[in-house]
Structures are given as structure tokens and as C-alpha cells.
């Protein structure tokens, strides 16, 4: 139980760091007049904030009711989603490399990196939702 509480606090701290980074990115992009960067950073911060609040409330309720944050099934779902997301992400990075070679023009490296990281996060989330509802 104490381990789960520490894990929940750690999730909260990491979420706050990510939200702060997204917000800083949005503010600095806005000050430079880069509206796409401002919207992107703000959107990342907002999405993480919503997920963090949901995770924290659900985790806290589960702990109070005597349930663990993770068990063998949830670990198996994360393992499967992560391993498949790794392979799919390789294809995404390959596709971005191919597309950037003349087909689409990225503004700079940070935009390409942002799309790659965002795409990897979306792939992981989709695969997690898939395996969480599938027979494993």
C-alpha cells in the first residue's frame, strides 16, 4: 500500500513536470509569434493535465478502497502495448524520415521531433486501449 502511494505521488510529480514543460513551450512559442508551437505546447499540457487528474482521482479512490494500483493483468497489458508500440514507432520514424526527404517540409528539428514524440505517445495509448479490452 505504501509502495502504491509513493507510485501515485511519483506519477503526479512527473505529470506536473511534463505539464510545466508543455506550458513553458507554449508561452515561449507565443512570445516568438509562433502560434502553431503555442497551440501544440498548450494542447500537450492540457491533455496531460486531464489524464493526470483522472489517474490521480481514480488511483486515490482505489487505494482508499484497498485495491492495488497495478496487478498482474495491468502489467501484462502495459508490457504488450509497450513492445508493440516500439515496433510501430520504428515504422513511424521511418515514414517521417521518408516524408521529410522532399515530400513535406518541417519548419525545424524541434517540429519533426515533436511530431515523432507525439505520434509515439498516441500509438502507445491506442495500443494500450486495444490490449486493455482484448483477451490476454
Amino acid at each position: 500500500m505504501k509502495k502504491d502511494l509513493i507510485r501515485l505521488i511519483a506519477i503526479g510529480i512527473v505529470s506536473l513536470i511534463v505539464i510545466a514543460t508543455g506550458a513553458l513551450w507554449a508561452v515561449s512559442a507565443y512570445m516568438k509569434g509562433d502560434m502553431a508551437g503555442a497551440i501544440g505546447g498548450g494542447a500537450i499540457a492540457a491533455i496531460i493535465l486531464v489524464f493526470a487528474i483522472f489517474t490521480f482521482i481514480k488511483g486515490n479512490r482505489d487505494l482508499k478502497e484497498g485495491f492495488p494500483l497495478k496487478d498482474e493483468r495491468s502489467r501484462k497489458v502495459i508490457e504488450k502495448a509497450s513492445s508493440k508500440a516500439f515496433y510501430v514507432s520504428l515504422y513511424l520514424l521511418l515514414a517521417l524520415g521518408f516524408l521529410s526527404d522532399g515530400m513535406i517540409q518541417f519548419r525545424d528539428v524541434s517540429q519533426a521531433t515533436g511530431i515523432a514524440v507525439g505520434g509515439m505517445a498516441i500509438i502507445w495509448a491506442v495500443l494500450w486501449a486495444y490490449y486493455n479490452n482484448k483477451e490476454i
Partner: protein
Amino acid sequence: MRTRIKELRAKYNLTQEDLARKCGVRRETIVFLEKGKYNPSLQLAHDVAKALKSKIEEIFLFDD
């Protein structure tokens, strides 16, 4: 795989939450176990059988 968890839970008047607490797992795991959509570890199968005062082979049924 089919299971008799729901039937045995009713027999011993246990909710899914009660069984989850007894086995030290999340509620969702019991829901998926009942539907036969999760193949548990031997440890969890043993814990479920113990909580439902039955043998593992009486709870988890395989169509050969």
C-alpha cells in the same frame, strides 16, 4: 476458457470487489476473469480457488 467464478461468488455471497480484495488484484481483473477473457497466472488461479473454497480445475474450464 470458461470460468465458474460468477456462480461460486454468488454461492459464497461475494461481490467482485470482495474477491478482488481477497486476491490482491484490481476489480477489472476479476471482471475479465469472469468473462474468460484473461488467462491468470498459476498464483492468481490458486488465490481465486482458495477464496472460492474450490479446486483450480473446478473453476477454470477448458474446452478440449
